[in-house]
């Protein structure tokens, strides 16, 4: 039987955080990998974050002191493991302003979106329906719907973005006009353009017309306050490993009433109430969606990461990264021959760019030699690059430990890089 589910407390009202601003140079010391490599500038946190000691300790402590399977054993150690695991669910719920029973563990954002497609989508969509996605979705926000659309015969529509990297919201009216759109899939923070999309406005628009909203929050949960109710989301997905947590764990949050109506998508242990040879009945929420032994330590590690983020203060993090990102944009834009991809009103902590005459692979290889880790390629967003007339780009992305000194080193190395390859 399942353990009682801790209910997420309603979001604590946000008080102004009057602590001094975060100091990235000090925070760097909390990351063992960075502390051990003082000259290494990790500028690829949008791909995956480095892990603070608090998270590594929580993983280690779980395996040393609390390891057992969950929801099964009745001995004290098993109860301890279950309490840690379900406690982690409660912490995720609090972090998102949600209820614990609305939090489904997955392997990450990709699996969360696939779950929505394969469970809700398969049961709800068919010929005559449409799913509206944006032109700046990560492949994880596109491909699950392409697969299902081919099978179920519904239509995919796209909300384009403009030259600045902002969604063209004025087109929404026309896209919804025939009343066929059942779901809007929107990325909260673009992993290429950096755009923070106005999810609240899109959700309000969609809800007025009877459509649901799925938010890919992989690039925003680690960097700002994300509250599922104030966003107006129906589904929200994020990954642990982009939020200072371990790889292999992620979250799908969905409104309780929706989860109740959705069929399971994978069968196995833990997701059932009773099993006969020919027929089974499903467990209560959220276990109905969690077949098999889950990533217990991963859940515990993710909760430790969210606690760590909260201890820094999410508003302080957002402020420190906003200021660092503005500095980086200024420094990069001043590099001759460098073109930033997107100039959105509100930018998350990343900057993708094209360096004239130098392929992004060569940029990343050159910077790598200088101890600067940036991403190169299409960042799992080929349609975005196609729209910009590029095959690929280089991207620097930032985190709480990114210093202005690292940005200076990046800008200076890019000048040398262009000279080297021209």
């Amino acid at each position, binding site marked *: 039987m399942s353990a009682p589910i801790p209910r997420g407390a309603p979001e604590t009202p946000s008080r102004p955080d009057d602590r001094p601003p975060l100091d990235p140079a000090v925070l760097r010391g909390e990351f063992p990998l960075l502390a051990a490599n003082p000259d290494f500038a990790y500028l690829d946190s949008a791909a995956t974050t480095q892990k603070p000691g608090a998270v590594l300790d929580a993983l280690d402590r779980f395996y040393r002191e609390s390891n057992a399977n969950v929801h099964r054993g009745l001995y004290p150690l098993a109860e301890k493991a279950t309490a840690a695991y379900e406690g982690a669910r409660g912490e995720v719920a609090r972090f998102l302003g949600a209820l614990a029973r609305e939090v489904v563990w997955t392997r990450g954002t990709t699996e969360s979106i696939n779950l929505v497609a394969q469970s809700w989508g398969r049961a709800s969509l068919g010929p005559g329906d449409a799913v509206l996605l944006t032109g700046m979705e990560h492949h994880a926000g596109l491909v699950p719907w392409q697969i299902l659309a081919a099978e179920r015969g519904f239509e995919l529509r796209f909300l384009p973005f403009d030259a600045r990297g902002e969604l063209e919201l004025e087109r929404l009216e026309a896209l919804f006009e025939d009343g066929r759109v059942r779901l809007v899939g929107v990325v909260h923070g673009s992993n290429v353009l950096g755009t923070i999309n106005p999810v609240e406005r899109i959700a309000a628009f969609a809800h007025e017309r009877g459509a649901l909203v799925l938010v890919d929050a992989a690039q925003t949960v680690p960097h700002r306050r994300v509250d599922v109710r104030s966003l107006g989301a129906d589904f929200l997905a994020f990954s642990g490993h982009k939020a200072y947590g371990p790889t292999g764990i992620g979250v799908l949050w969905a409104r309780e009433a929706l989860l109740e109506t959705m069929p399971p998508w994978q069968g196995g242990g833990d997701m059932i109430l009773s099993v006969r040879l020919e027929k089974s009945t499903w467990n209560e929420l959220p276990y109905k969606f969690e077949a098999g032994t889950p990533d217990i330590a991963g859940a515990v590690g993710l909760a430790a990461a969210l606690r760590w983020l909260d201890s820094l203060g999410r508003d302080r993090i957002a402020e420190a990264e906003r200021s660092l990102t503005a500095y980086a944009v200024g420094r990069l834009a001043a590099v001759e021959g460098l073109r930033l991809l997107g100039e959105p009103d509100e930018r998350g902590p990343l900057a993708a760019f094209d360096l004239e005459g130098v*392929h*992004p*692979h*060569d940029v990343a*290889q*050159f910077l790598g*030699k200088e101890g600067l880790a940036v991403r*190169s*390629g*299409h960042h799992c967003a*080929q349609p975005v*690059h196609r729209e910009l007339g590029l*095959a*690929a780009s280089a991207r620097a992305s930032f985190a709480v430990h990114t210093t202005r000194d690292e940005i200076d080193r990046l800008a200076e190395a890019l000048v040398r890089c262009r000279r*080297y*390859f*021209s």
Partner: protein
Amino acid sequence: MSDFDELYQEIILDHYRRPRGAARLDEVPEGEIHENPTCGDSLKLKVEFGPDGRIARVLHESRGCAISVASASMLTGAVAGLVPAEALSLAGEVEAALRGEGDDPRGFLEGNGELAALAGVAAFPARVKCASLAWRALESALAPPPGTDRGS
């Protein structure tokens, strides 16, 4: 020489800056464009034969990094004058050597003229696809998969 300097030695940079055999190949159909899935790089390739059935000239339109463009450029020199079977065999050996396979991959590349400059790629597994792209394109140009109508 560091791994980086071996990867980007002068001869690679020279082929990148002045690629041999580079051309606009608008006539090559979209279905024959070769892409590197990790970065979206693309390459079109066209083989022209002499009256003796030997490869007279290889042209390519490359959109890629220094390594992939230089590799395509070197390919044009390495296969000119070969019969298709010889070129296919060379392509297979080059790709294996880039992956570090065989008894002496470095020795094989170093024994093949300018291709020696590609020996540094093996130290960077992520770049093997870049260096292999043109050779894979050559293979499919010379030995199209069954059922492919090349419209020649």
